[in-house]
């Protein structure tokens, strides 16, 4: 990095989206060329343009070190903190070498790069009652809770309220009333907190709301947008998991029925039976679900699509009425996995944000042969053969030189806050050593 910092100033051209709603003029693009060292931030570049060329450029900022969350913008179409984006990286990702800066999406523009966070983001945050509804009686001194139970919510506590996930949320793009990723992640911060007394009420509220937890489309936009790895979509999935599994909340949005129908159809057939999934999601999770009035109504509204699918031979009546199944012995294995996992006293979950990754040498390309584990000697000799072998690289922060002897100890360090005890609970049903596992 030292080398990078020694690089002399260079010229960078910024193309900024300008808009002043009060002026009555349409938005327009404005270009300025500034000069700064490549490691400096996009925010510094915007401020230099404002100081040198046009004092009317609107940008909100404060801490300049990715803590306050004020300078959320879009850089080359992607959400980012302007203070946390290096100029050389921004230039590299620009289409034509010009760094394009726009205000965040899904929120009205106040001026230029400043959006109205109150109108959208903060309104949604307030919607989820973002404070502790404490268990009574309130103790005279502090609440005492096991450290590991708080480690679980550290990921959501990491949120700096920058609005990047809100800006990029695709569900909000079509449904502005969607509570959205930041607020739902904030809701999990309290649902996961053992001191809070209103878990059921919070979950029931968010499950029944047509724009609540079941309105998320699984698009992963917020996961990539978040500069702090809060993984809002992951938190929304946890809200759903707890609402349906632990509190047995049956919502009016088909969320619980859909999950139950999907999960049990795979248990019963091994493969998805689409023709049965839809009516069950509406009418209830049984073969009779399709006769429920809700399912009938849905069937009727989908008739134009169903008729065309039948006419084109895309779907045959026999195919719709009969599930496709995997072979019987395999189906029995699948069912035994279901029984095995679902009978555990505590549901377990591995959160890599907290657990981190094993610090092992990168694996050699494992040949796909007969499920036989390659002998250790062979694995070691294959050092460096791993190039191109990873289709799914894990999170960052694993670049430490491998040391197999200490690897096991290092694993437990993860990314937990200093001083926090990250050991998993001693439940025999938790996966051994899964430090990031929780019982959510």
């Amino acid at each position, binding site marked *: 990095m030292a080398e990078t910092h020694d690089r002399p100033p260079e010229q960078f051209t910024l193309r900024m989206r300008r808009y002043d709603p009060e002026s009555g003029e349409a938005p327009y693009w404005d270009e300025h060329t500034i000069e700064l060292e490549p490691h400096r931030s996009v925010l510094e570049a915007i401020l230099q343009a404002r100081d040198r060329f046009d004092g009317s450029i609107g940008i909100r900022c404060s801490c300049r070190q990715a803590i306050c969350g004020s300078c959320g913008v879009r850089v080359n179409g992607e959400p980012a903190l302007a203070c946390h984006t290096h100029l050389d990286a921004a230039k590299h990702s620009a289409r034509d070498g010009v760094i394009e800066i726009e205000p965040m999406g899904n929120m009205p523009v106040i001026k230029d790069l400043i959006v109205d966070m109150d109108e959208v983001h903060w309104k949604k945050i307030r919607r989820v009652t973002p404070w502790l509804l404490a268990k009574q009686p309130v103790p005279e001194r502090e609440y005492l809770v096991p450290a590991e139970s708080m480690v679980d919510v550290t990921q959501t506590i990491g949120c700096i309220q920058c609005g990047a996930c809100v800006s990029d949320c*695709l*569900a909000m793009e*079509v449904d502005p009333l969607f509570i959205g990723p930041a607020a739902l992640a904030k809701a999990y911060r309290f649902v996961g907190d053992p001191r809070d007394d209103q878990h059921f009420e919070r979950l029931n509220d968010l499950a029944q709301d*047509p724009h609540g937890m079941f309105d998320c*489309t*699984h698009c992963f*936009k917020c*996961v*990539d947008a978040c500069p702090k790895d809060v993984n809002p979509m992951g938190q929304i*999935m946890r809200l*759903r998991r707890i609402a349906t*599994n632990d509190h047995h909340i049956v919502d009016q949005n088909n969320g619980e029925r*859909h999950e139950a129908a*999907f*999960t049990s159809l*795979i248990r019963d057939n091994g*493969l*998805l039976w*689409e*023709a049965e999934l839809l009516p069950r999601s509406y009418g209830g999770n049984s073969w009779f679900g399709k006769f429920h009035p809700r399912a009938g109504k849905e069937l009727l*509204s989908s008739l134009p*699509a169903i008729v065309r699918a039948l006419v*084109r*031979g*895309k*779907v045959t009546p026999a195919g719709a009425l009969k599930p*496709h199944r*995997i072979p019987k012995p*395999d189906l029995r*294995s*699948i069912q035994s*996995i*279901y029984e*095995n*996992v679902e009978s555990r006293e505590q549901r377990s*979950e*591995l959160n*890599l944000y907290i*657990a981190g990754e*094993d610090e*092992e040498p990168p*694996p050699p*390309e*494992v040949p*796909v*042969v*007969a*499920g036989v584990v390659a002998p250790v000697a062979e694995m070691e000799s294959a050092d460096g053969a*791993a190039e*191109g*072998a*990873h*289709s*799914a690289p*894990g999170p960052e922060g694993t670049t430490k030189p491998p040391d197999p002897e200490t690897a096991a100890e290092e*694993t437990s360090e993860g990314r937990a806050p200093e001083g926090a005890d990250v050991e998993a609970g001693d439940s025999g049903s938790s*996966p*051994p*050593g*899964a430090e990031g596992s929780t019982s959510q």
Partner: protein
Amino acid sequence: MKVAYWPGCVSRGFTPELHGSMAKVAPLLDIELVELDRACCTGAGVIAEHNQELADTLNARTFALAQQVDGAAMMMNICSTCQGAQSECQERLDANAEYREHINGTLSSEGLSYEKGLTNKNFLWLLVEEIGLEKLRSLVKRPLTNLRVGPFYGCYIVRPRRRLGIDAEHPRDDYLHHVIAALGGTVIEYAGMRKCCGFPIITMNKEASLKQAGRHLGDAVDATADCLVTPCPLCHLNLDLQQPLAEKVVGRELDMPVLHLPQLVGLALGLEPKELGMNRHVVRPTSVIDWSASVVGAAA
């Protein structure tokens, strides 16, 4: 190249033309498909939402079965959602040896065990990274000249970038562009090409779901695309099967054909639209069929 082949559920259910066209195209690309017919659904994120360990175990079983396929270079899928769901489980399994051991413990009654490091690629990734665009270009018999194709990536194959191994060296979120161009087609960009088709919330918020599909299709119409191509059968359900309903929600006629990736490849490799099951789409791919007829006519 021999691969352990995971076709997914929907390619054998509501989009049978996908599985069928892949089977037709594979030999032309010298891909030997060994179907994992003992494996179960990936859970499409829904089983993970219900119980993460259950999804991880079911997918670890599939990975273990893939590792048993003698001589297979890797596992291949033809469904973006499968890729996304499997990558998520694999990320956890590969990250933590003790967790993997725990999951393998559940699989042991069947004599199965997942060994860290399986390579699992969607057909799109395999086309670009294993077969290569040069080779693909050389195999083209009927270049898609003047066919205006809009890529529709969907979500599960482009996000999250880190998990899916997308970086400057592996711009996997641009691969559809490269493939369309290599087949001789014209790439049509439009606003929704990497957005969500809306399928995951079709039962929870149908209007929002169809508004998503309708908007992207409308964007593609405005960009004068002849057709879209997608590597995801679930996107295909919302964009093709549901298109008559999406038209009502967005209040405009769309009539935008949507092809599965193997269909587009097959067309350029000389197969006929009917062989590729294009007659089974809800939105008749007339523009594509007319185009192929005109190309054949011109050649004659």
